[in-house]
């Protein structure tokens, strides 16, 4: 399964090794780990809860992975996203892409993160010294995802 939602932590090194499976055609492995920080929007964060929409989240991530595989020449993709309670320095998400060449692996990995950030139903609630707050969506994430859209036709 290229997509997993889980409460427990992941071992990024072991996941990468499993995805490569000693496949001698793999020349490039691009990966990304998203980590819980101790501050956001200028305020301290002591804890975080990640909520998802069971069923739809997996489907949405599957669709993003399929789109990445159709756009770039890559071999295998893994997305692991944690839900539940997390604290600063905890790992949140892992994306790994293997391929023959680095350019395609990098592009697919970054694309998956940008789409995940704007299209996968996952929500963060932060505990701060001033109380709990739901994280607001960022326009910078919309802009990052927008880069991957085909240019709109200007024909009448």
């Amino acid at each position, binding site marked *: 399964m290229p997509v997993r939602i889980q409460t427990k932590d992941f071992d990024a090194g072991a996941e990468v090794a499993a995805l490569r499976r000693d496949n001698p055609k793999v020349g490039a492995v691009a990966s990304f780990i998203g980590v819980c920080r101790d501050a956001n929007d200028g305020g301290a964060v002591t804890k975080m809860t990640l909520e998802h929409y069971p069923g739809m989240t997996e489907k949405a991530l599957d669709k993003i992975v399929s789109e990445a595989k159709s756009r770039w020449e890559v071999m295998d993709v893994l997305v692991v996203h944690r839900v539940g309670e997390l604290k600063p320095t905890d790992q949140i998400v892992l994306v790994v892409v293997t391929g023959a060449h680095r350019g395609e692996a990098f592009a697919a990995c970054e694309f998956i993160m940008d789409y995940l950030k*704007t299209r996968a139903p996952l929500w963060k609630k932060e505990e701060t010294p001033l109380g709990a707050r739901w*994280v607001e*969506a960022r326009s910078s994430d919309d802009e990052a995802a927008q880069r991957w859209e085909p240019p709109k036709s200007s024909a009448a």
Partner: protein
Amino acid sequence: MKIKVLYLASLREQLGRPGEDLEISPAGSTVAGLRALLMARGGAWQTVLAQGKALRVAVNQEMAQPTTPVKPGDEIAFFPPVTGG
């Protein structure tokens, strides 16, 4: 007709429930129609589901538009813009 409605993340907290089973009129039902029906309850329903709010709706776990039809047995989820990753 019977449908299932879900409220996720901040919407669940603001509306005070995770979801509900509803019996609504099948005639010309759409996402926009369901939203109007829920807003007519007044109070938090009216403010939280107000048209200006950045709100997302999924029908049967696929992203939907205001014009997306709602059919018997559908699962309709209301939630805020996503913030995972």
